[in-house]
C-alpha cells in the first residue's frame, strides 16, 4: 500500500497523540518510522515550571517539531505553547552578534571586543568602588550549571552578594514559606499525589492557563475519581473555578482571613488531627519583623485563642466570601482521605505572600493532610529552573547552594572550604534583592549590571522608574539575550547574543524536585553562545585583571557542563537536598529524577520527610523517627511550625480615588514577557495582544464594551488597552496579563514587597478606569 506524504504526516501526528493516551492505532506496519523526523532528542519544555518532558524532532540539522515524552510525568501531553516550541529558535529577531550601543544605535562588534569591554568596565568599577559596585541579575530559565557557576563567581570569587534573579519576582514567597514552616525549601510532595488526592484546594492558581498539563491531570482525577472535590479560591471566575465544586470568590488581598477562618472551623468542629499536631509541630508568632525578626514560641492554646476572632462571619465581612463556603471548604479539606493544595502567583506576589504560604501549610499540619499519597502542600512554579538553578543552587542574594544561608557563618565557611577561597571571602551580609538591586542601579550605587536570560525592562513592577535607571548613561548595562530588541536589551550598553534552549546543554530542576537533563540538539544561531561559556571566559579574565590569575585558573576551569554538574552534586552531598547519586549519565537515561538521591543506586524520592514512603534522609537526619520527620527544622526538634499570622491587607487597596483593583497574570497562549511566544505565529494569531478583562457590571458603569479602548491609571502611570467585558473578574477587579511587550502593564503595578521574601505585590494595586 502506498501513501502520500500527506497521509504519512497525518498518521505520524495520530500516532503521537494516540500513544500519549495509551491508545493502539491500527496503522500500517513501519509507517511511524517513515514519517517522523530524522532524529529525536530527549529534552524538557522551555516554558513553565511544570517541566513537561519532550522529544525534539530534527531534520536537516534544524528543529522541526516537538512531541511530548510519554514516559515522563506528563505522559506525552503538552500544552499549546509546548506544542509550538520549534519556531522560537528560528525567529527573525534572534540576537545574532554582540552589539554595542553608540548613541541611539547598536553596532556589531566581535566577541573579543565585547568581552574586553565588559571585563574592563567591571574591573575598573571593582578597583575604584569595590566589589559591591557590580551586580548580576539572573533567571529561573538559565540552566543549573549557569546559575551555580555565576553565583560562585560573585560570592566566592568577587566577595559580593550583589546577585539575585527573577525568581524573586515569582516564587520567593513560596521558598520562604517552605523554609519558615518546614526548615528547608521545596515541596515535599509530587505530581503523583494528584492521582491519590480526593480533595484539591487551589488558591491563587489559574492552573488551566498557567500549568495546563497539570490541570489536565487534576481534571482527569476529578472526572474519574469517586467523590473527588475541587475547591478553588480565586477572585476571578477562571476555567478552573468554573470546574470547581466550590468556588470561593473574595476581595483580593483578604485570603489570609479566609485561611485563618478555615483553621478556626477545623478546630471548633474538632476536625484537627491532634495526634499529628502533638507529634510533629510547634507554634510560633513573629512579634517584630526586625531585622532580625523577633519570634516567640507559642502553644496550642495560644493558637486556639488567636483564631477565636477568625470566625466565618468575621472572614465573610472582611473578604466577601460567604461564610457557608468557608465552612464547607474547611470540612472538605479536613475530612477528605487526602487533600492536596496547589497555589502559584496569587499567593506569592503579595506583600504578605510568605504569611499566606504559611497559612496554607498550617491547614495541612493541623489536619495531618501531609506526607502521604495525595496529601501535600504544593507550590507551582512559573519558570523551568527557578527551583533547580536559583532556589536549590543558591543564586539569590541571601542564599548559598543547597539550603545554606549567607547569614550563617558555618554555611559560609563550608562553601569557602568547598570552593577553595580564603576564609572571609563570602560577604556575611545578604545582597540587594531584585527591586533593591534596580533601586541601587538607579542611584548608581551599582555601576555595572549584567542581566542574563531575563527581561526586567518589562517584568519589574513600577516599571518606568527602573527603565529610566537602566537607560542611564552613568551606569553600564550588559544584557545576555536570545532576542533583540527585547524591552531590556533595547536599554543596554552591550548586548550579548545567547544560545537558547536545545542550542546548549544543561540541567533543569522543576516543581516536584524533578531534575532533568536537556541535551544539546542543534548549533546556536549565528554567533550566539551558551551563557555558561561566556560566564567562564568572563570570570577568568575579570579575576585575572584583579591580579589573581592563579585563583581564576583554580576556581573557574571546567571542560564542559558535566564538570560543573559534578561539582554541583558534590556541593549537595550531605545536605537535605542531597543528589550526589544523580549523575549526568543517569539523568541522560532517566525521564527525570526527584531528589534526594543520596547514592548512585538510589532511585530518587517521590515524597520527602516520610520514611514510610521512601525518604532515605529521614533516618540520616533523625534516627529516632519512625516515619515522618521535618528534618530541615533541626532547631525545632524536626517539627514543622504552625504560625500565628494575622490577616493584613494589601499595600494599596482600592479607595475612593482609585476604586478598582488591578491584578496581573498569565494567559494560555503566552509566556512571561512574550519574547518567545510572540515569535510563534500560531500563538500570536490566537492571542495577538494584551487586553483588560472587566466585569460586565463595572463595564456598564463606565460605559465600555468589548474592544473599546480603556484608560487604566494607577498612582505610578497610565496605559490604554482594549477592554474585554467578561464575567471572569469579580466586580471591582480588573485583570491583564503581563505578556505583551507593547502594553507594559507593569508601569502601573506597585513595587511594595513582602518584608520576608522581598517579592513584590504584582497581584494587587489600585487603579481608576475611564473610556479612552
Amino acid at each position, binding site marked *: 500500500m502506498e501513501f502520500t506524504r500527506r497521509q504519512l504526516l*497525518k498518521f505520524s501526528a*495520530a500516532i503521537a497523540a494516540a500513544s500519549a493516551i495509551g491508545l493502539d492505532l491500527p496503522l500500517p506496519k513501519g509507517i511511524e518510522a517513515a514519517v517522523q523526523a530524522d532524529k529525536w532528542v530527549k529534552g524538557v519544555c522551555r516554558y513553565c515550571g511544570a517541566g513537561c518532558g519532550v522529544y525534539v524532532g530534527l531534520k536537516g540539522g534544524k528543529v522541526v517539531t516537538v512531541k511530548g515524552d510519554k514516559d515522563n510525568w506528563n505522559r506525552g501531553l503538552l500544552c499549546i505553547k509546548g506544542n509550538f516550541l520549534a519556531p522560537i529558535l528560528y525567529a527573525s529577531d534572534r540576537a545574532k552578534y554582540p552589539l554595542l550601543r553608540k548613541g541611539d544605535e547598536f553596532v556589531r562588534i566581535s566577541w573579543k571586543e565585547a568581552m574586553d569591554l565588559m571585563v574592563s568596565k567591571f574591573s575598573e568599577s571593582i578597583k575604584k568602588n569595590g566589589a559591591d559596585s557590580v551586580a548580576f541579575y539572573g533567571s529561573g530559565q538559565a540552566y543549573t550549571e549557569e546559575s551555580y557557576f555565576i553565583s560562585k563567581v560573585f560570592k566566592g570569587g568577587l566577595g559580593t552578594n550583589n546577585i539575585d534573579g527573577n525568581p524573586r519576582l515569582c516564587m520567593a514567597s513560596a521558598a520562604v514559606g517552605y523554609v519558615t514552616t518546614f526548615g528547608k525549601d521545596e515541596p515535599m510532595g509530587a505530581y503523583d499525589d494528584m492521582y491519590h488526592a480526593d480533595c484539591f484546594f487551589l488558591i491563587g492558581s489559574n492552573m488551566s492557563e498557567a500549568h495546563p498539563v497539570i490541570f489536565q491531570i487534576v481534571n482527569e482525577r476529578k472526572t474519574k475519581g469517586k467523590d473527588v472535590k475541587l475547591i478553588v479560591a480565586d477572585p476571578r471566575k477562571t476555567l478552573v473555578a468554573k470546574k470547581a465544586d466550590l468556588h470561593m470568590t473574595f476581595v483580593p488581598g483578604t485570603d489570609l482571613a479566609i485561611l485563618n477562618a478555615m483553621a478556626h472551623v477545623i478546630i471548633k468542629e474538632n476536625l484537627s488531627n491532634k495526634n499529628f499536631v502533638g507529634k510533629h509541630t510547634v507554634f510560633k508568632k513573629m512579634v517584630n519583623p526586625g531585622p532580625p525578626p523577633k519570634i516567640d514560641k507559642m502553644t496550642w492554646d495560644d493558637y486556639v485563642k488567636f483564631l477565636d476572632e477568625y470566625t466565618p462571619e468575621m472572614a465573610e465581612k472582611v473578604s466577601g466570601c460567604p461564610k457557608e463556603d468557608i465552612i464547607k471548604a474547611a470540612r472538605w479539606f479536613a475530612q477528605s482521605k487526602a487533600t492536596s493544595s496547589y497555589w502559584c502567583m496569587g499567593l506569592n506576589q503579595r506583600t504578605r505572600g510568605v504569611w499566606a504560604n504559611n497559612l496554607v501549610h498550617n491547614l495541612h499540619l493541623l489536619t495531618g493532610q501531609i506526607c502521604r499519597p495525595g496529601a501535600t502542600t504544593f507550590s507551582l512554579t512559573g519558570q523551568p529552573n527557578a527551583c533547580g538553578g536559583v532556589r536549590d543552587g543558591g543564586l539569590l542574594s541571601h542564599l548559598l547552594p543547597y539550603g545554606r544561608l549567607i547569614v550563617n557563618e558555618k554555611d559560609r565557611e563550608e562553601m569557602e572550604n568547598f570552593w577553595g577561597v580564603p576564609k572571609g571571602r563570602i560577604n556575611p551580609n545578604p545582597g540587594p534583592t531584585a527591586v533593591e538591586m534596580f533601586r541601587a542601579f538607579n542611584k548608581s550605587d551599582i555601576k555595572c549590571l549584567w542581566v542574563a536570560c531575563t527581561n526586567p525592562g518589562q517584568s519589574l513592577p513600577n516599571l518606568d522608574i527602573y527603565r529610566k535607571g537602566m537607560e542611564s548613561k552613568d551606569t553600564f548595562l550588559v544584557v545576555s539575550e536570545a532576542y533583540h530588541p527585547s524591552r531590556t536589551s533595547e536599554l543596554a550598553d552591550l548586548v550579548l547574543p545567547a544560545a537558547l534552549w536545545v542550542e546548549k546543554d544543561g540541567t533543569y530542576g522543576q516543581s516536584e524536585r524533578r531534575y532533568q537533563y536537556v541535551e544539546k540538539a542543534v548549533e546556536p544561531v549565528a554567533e550566539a553562545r551558551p551563557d555558561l561559556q561566556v560566564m567562564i571566559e568572563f570570570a577568568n579574565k575579570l579575576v585575572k585583571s584583579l591580579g589573581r590569575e592563579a585563583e581564576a585558573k583554580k576556581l573557574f576551569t571546567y571542560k564542559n557542563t558535566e564538570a560543573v554538574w559534578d561539582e554541583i552534586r558534590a556541593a549537595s552531598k550531605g545536605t537535605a537536598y542531597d543528589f550526589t547519586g544523580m549523575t549526568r549519565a543517569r539523568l541522560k537515561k532517566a525521564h527525570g529524577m526527584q531528589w534526594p538521591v543520596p547514592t548512585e543506586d538510589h532511585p530518587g524520592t517521590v515524597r520527602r520527610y516520610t520514611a514510610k514512603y521512601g525518604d532515605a534522609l529521614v533516618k540520616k537526619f533523625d534516627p529516632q523517627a519512625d516515619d515522618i520527620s521535618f528534618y530541615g527544622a533541626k532547631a525545632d526538634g524536626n517539627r514543622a511550625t504552625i504560625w500565628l499570622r494575622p490577616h493584613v491587607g494589601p499595600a494599596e487597596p482600592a479607595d475612593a480615588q482609585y476604586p478598582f483593583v488591578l491584578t496581573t497574570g498569565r494567559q494560555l497562549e503566552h509566556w512571561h514577557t512574550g519574547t518567545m511566544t510572540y515569535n510563534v505565529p500560531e500563538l500570536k494569531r490566537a492571542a495577538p495582544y494584551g487586553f483588560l478583562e472587566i466585569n460586565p457590571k463595572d463595564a456598564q458603569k463606565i460605559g465600555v464594551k468589548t474592544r473599546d479602548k480603556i484608560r487604566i491609571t494607577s498612582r505610578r502611570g497610565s496605559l490604554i488597552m482594549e477592554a474585554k467585558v467578561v464575567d471572569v473578574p469579580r466586580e471591582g477587579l480588573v485583570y491583564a496579563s503581563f505578556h505583551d511587550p507593547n502594553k507594559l502593564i507593569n508601569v502601573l503595578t506597585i513595587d511594595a514587597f513582602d518584608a520576608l521574601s522581598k517579592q513584590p505585590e504584582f497581584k494587587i494595586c489600585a487603579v481608576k478606569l475611564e473610556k479612552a
Partner: protein
Amino acid sequence: MPVSSAIVEIDEGAGEAVLNSLSSMHDITVYGMKENKIVIVIDADSLGVIEQSTKKIMSMEGVTGVFPVYSSVDE
C-alpha cells in the same frame, strides 16, 4: 500545509455528542477514543484553520480541553 494532532478531553457521557460534532467538521479526522479522550488530526490548508478548528472544538458542549500533541508542516 499544516497537520496537527490533539487529544480532545470530554465530560463523562458526552462521547457520542462530541464525536458527532467532530465528524461534521471536514478538516478533522477522528482516529480513536479511549475513556474520556478522543484522538483527532486536523488537516488544514493554513494555520489559521487549525486555530479556528481548535477554538470551535473548545467551545463544544461536553469538551473540557483540547491538548495539542504534534504538529508538522508539509512544505
